[in-house]
């Protein structure tokens, strides 16, 4: 029963998945294969950064909010790329959505992540939510609720490194690094050098 829930679960890799910080990271676990390597991730992020800028017509009023843990690192990387293009810094922060999740009661109480809101708040800004993997869409729903309590952005967009499908809510991403068709039995693991020693997107499991 536990296993079934694990496989069906989406965005909780970051809480107790095998890629928690402190885990022996980096090299693939048995049965894992890399679908994106470091240069692929770099190119995808560069493209997303340009897309965000193009869509928002510049970095004015733009704010990137990453969903901890790995979304927050991705948001920071995107901000660096946008700064290189625009020549000035863009507002970047993180938004923890744990308190807004709809599956809190299914599992033991969990530790909270960091929320860092750039000065000025979200009112009137174009907020781009950044996460590593888009799966059921429930994390994004929680993030939208959390944003609602923080203020009233002019627009909210969603950027993800990997979209693996299997949405359970009417949510889609505006900017996608890689569309990755998966089966529900597979797990997708994103490694980022900030905490996992290297960059990679790993796919595991499936046929058995």
């Amino acid at each position, binding site marked *: 029963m536990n296993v079934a829930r694990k496989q069906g679960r989406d965005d909780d890799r970051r809480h107790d998945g095998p890629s928690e910080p402190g885990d022996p990271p980096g090299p693939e676990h048995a049965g894992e294969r890399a679908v994106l390597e470091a240069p692929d991730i770099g190119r995808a992020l560069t493209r997303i950064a340009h897309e965000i800028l193009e869509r928002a017509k510049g970095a004015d009023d733009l704010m990137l909010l990453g969903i901890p843990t790995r979304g927050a690192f991705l948001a920071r990387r995107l901000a660096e790329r946008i700064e290189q293009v625009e020549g000035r810094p863009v507002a970047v922060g993180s938004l*923890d959505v744990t308190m807004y999740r709809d599956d809190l*009661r299914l599992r*033991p*109480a*969990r530790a909270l992540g960091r929320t860092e809101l750039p000065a000025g708040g979200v009112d009137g800004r174009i907020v781009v939510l950044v996460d590593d993997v888009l799966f059921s869409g429930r994390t994004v729903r929680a993030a939208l609720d959390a944003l609602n309590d923080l203020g009233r952005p002019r627009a909210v967009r969603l950027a993800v490194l990997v979209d693996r499908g299997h949405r359970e809510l009417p949510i889609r991403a505006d900017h996608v690094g890689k569309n990755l068709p998966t089966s529900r039995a597979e797990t997708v693991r994103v490694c980022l050098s900030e905490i996992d020693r290297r960059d990679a997107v790993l796919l595991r499991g499936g046929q058995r």
Partner: protein
Amino acid sequence: MNRHLLSTADLSRDDAVLILDTAEHLSQVADRSIKKLPTLRGRTVVNLFYEDSTRTRISFEAAAKRLSADVINFSAKGSSVSKGESLKDTALTLQAMGADAVVVRHGASGAPHRLATWVDGSVVNAGDGTHEHPTQALLDAFTMRRRLGDLDGRRVTIVGDILHSRVARSNVHLLHTLGAEVTVVAPPTLLPVAMGDWPCEVSYDFDAVLSKSDAVMMLRVQHERMNASFFPSAREYSRRYGLDPARLARMPEGAIVMHPGPMNRGMEIAAEVADCARSTIVEQVTNGVTVRMAVLYLLLSGSESAIGGPQ
């Protein structure tokens, strides 16, 4: 599995740090325009208070409401307790009403432990007799951590009526768990007879330890428990164990003054000391709500609690 917060002596270092870290994240909520989180929607928290309290009860109520829990306040005055209902029958009533958590204050030491065996919900000790007051110790530790940084190796002095103080006992255990060095200071009559299992130093001389304290916590002289001649006169107590401006001046730079409240101004703490910049007394009240939110969140939000000893 059922989990409770009954005593700081039950908390491991990891549990204590988890509570303080969670509180750190939750403290941001107080700065928002919407100071409410949906996390405990549909859960019921009962405040069961057999003893008078303002700040603790209000603090727990605010904490539960900020997490969207339903709060039922019960005080012994004006309830069936005055008709002679026992703690057990009251507990069974709460149980039948479906309380997810019971926050209990009781004059008898150990009452929350008994209560925990009768109800299915989590029990949070909000002060039992002269035994423990764990959330007070947690908010004190949180306040110290914010002002002083990591508590490892910090020297904390607790001054006053140790004999009757649940705050002192909870603080000594928690601060020891967090790596601080604790010294309790009191006249010999206001110290428990057997302190062998208290992980702290004991002194009768406030001035001797004052100059090497990073934090000084003054305890209230509890007039309601002063049923014997513990010290000759209020004035003598105040002279030897009160924190006045002269003593404040001898404290190390950066050291803080704490008091769990309510204060007897002019008795254990001088008014100008209580209101000075090094006093954290008002911060402690603010932090109380945050820390209690963290405790309720960790006990109630998941399928099982993240903290507390199993019962």
